[in-house]
């Protein structure tokens, strides 16, 4: 199976690999997937308390090239968005941007789950109710 150029680019030069301080109240961490399934994504956001915008996003991913590319792309998209805007990111946007084939759609679903999990972590830390997933991803 050939990868799209965008997947190869994100894999070769991943954006925003790293770790944010998860003990900070303005940092939200999402850890999704499972080692047994061959994909684990950890995605973190840091929210600017004054503007409410995501000022930094980092990821680490165990998985195939498409999983790495999906999370790399997600962190790029998250930066500068408000938390509400971030919630609107749909896995199909990632599929389209990276030209993912059908067998790799689950990588984009995982990235969307990771975004939602990070936002929920941030919300809970800041006394907001957890959002319930509107669609079952898997």
């Amino acid at each position: 199976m050939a990868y799209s150029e965008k997947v190869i680019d994100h894999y070769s030069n991943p954006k925003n690999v790293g770790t944010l301080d998860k003990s900070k109240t303005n940092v939200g961490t999402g850890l999704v997937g499972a080692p047994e399934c061959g994909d684990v994504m950890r995605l973190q956001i840091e929210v600017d308390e004054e503007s409410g915008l995501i000022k930094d996003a980092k990821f680490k991913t165990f998985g195939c090239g498409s999983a790495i590319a999906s999370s790399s792309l997600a962190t790029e998209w998250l930066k500068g968005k408000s938390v509400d805007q971030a919630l609107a990111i749909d896995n199909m946007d990632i599929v389209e941007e990276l030209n993912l084939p059908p067998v790799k759609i689950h990588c984009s679903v995982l990235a969307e789950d990771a975004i939602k999990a990070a936002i929920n972590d941030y919300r809970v830390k800041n006394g907001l109710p957890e959002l319930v997933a509107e669609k079952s991803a898997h």
Partner: protein
Amino acid sequence: MELKLPIYLDNNATTPMDPRVLEAMLPYFTEKFGNAASRNHSFGWVAEEAVDYAREQVAKLINADPKEIIFTSGATEGDNLAIKGVFEMYATKGNHIITCTTEHKAVLDTCKHIEKAGGQVTYLPVLADGLIDVNELEKAITDKTILIAIMYGNNETGVIQPVREISKIARKHGVLFFTDATQAVGKIPVDVNADGIDLMTFSGHKMYGPKGVGALYVRRKNPRVKVTAQMDGGGHERGMRSGTLNVPAIVGLGKACELCMNEMDAEAKHLSIMRDRLEKALMQIEETYVNGNTEHRLPHVCNISFKYVEGEGLMMGFNKNIALSSGSACTSASLEPSYVLKALGLGDDLAHSSLRFGLGRFTTDEQIDFTIKAVTDTVLKLREMSPLWEMFKEGVDINAIEWAHH
């Protein structure tokens, strides 16, 4: 020597054809095109003579009689013909077959077919090193057992089963012994008499011969073994396999066998030295594990898990330059990692993290050097990107985390 890219290290999937094999085959596509079954003219005689010669070359490699060689389309056909053919031929004696969980799909799926047809199949588990427990094998034999089907060398791990112990048990209980020796024939000495084999399948394209041709060995003496044909037709190959003989491919298989016969000793030694060097270098990386028994192993294979990185992601780091296989099933729709590695007791995480290196006749030292560097660099790079590696380094118990399974 100059390094030639891309490097091919997937010789368990298929081997490149040796140019000497191609040369032997070429006349049989054009001027020597006859049907080996045409008895009345010289075109047929020439083809028949070529087939007879190839049959001798094949038989010699495995110490068989030429009359015991049935030409097939490949190892899968041989697996089907041996298992289904014995099941049908010996129906009055019993209906029980013993195999093991790490067999090739061509054996396992054929056994599933036998179960649907009213047969009984025992799937022996393997030990952590990939070997079967011969005591368990003997215990599994009943008065209905007609066949033991255990492979010679495994395609994913290279582990060599204790063939002589297996055949001894089979003989003792009057049960036939069939082995899929696709990965072993031409790589290590295989002797159907010394090894006590009754039926054996193998394939041309795993030993530098052409694709689409293989052979099934069927013992003629002590005991005389027969299989029911699975294809009806002109009664070729002593009635066991109808169909016009694929003369050029058979000539190629014969030549490939002859080359293996002459070069196997030196080649196996050379390959095992390169393989061991590769393995030793990669094992310098932390949290790296060799899968399967390393003592009873084919000389050209190694299978290694690089914990905390995923196999397909790993291959992407160098697959422009190096071709090999992973036990990760991320490329398949099933998302299930290698059943062979799981049968060895590996967790899904380690199975997802595995690479299979299959060296071959045309592998060079320069290619091994390049591979060591490329794999090492990619593993280290991906671990920097792996949340599991970070957790491991921080002393987090990854197994204690409640993961949300898909």
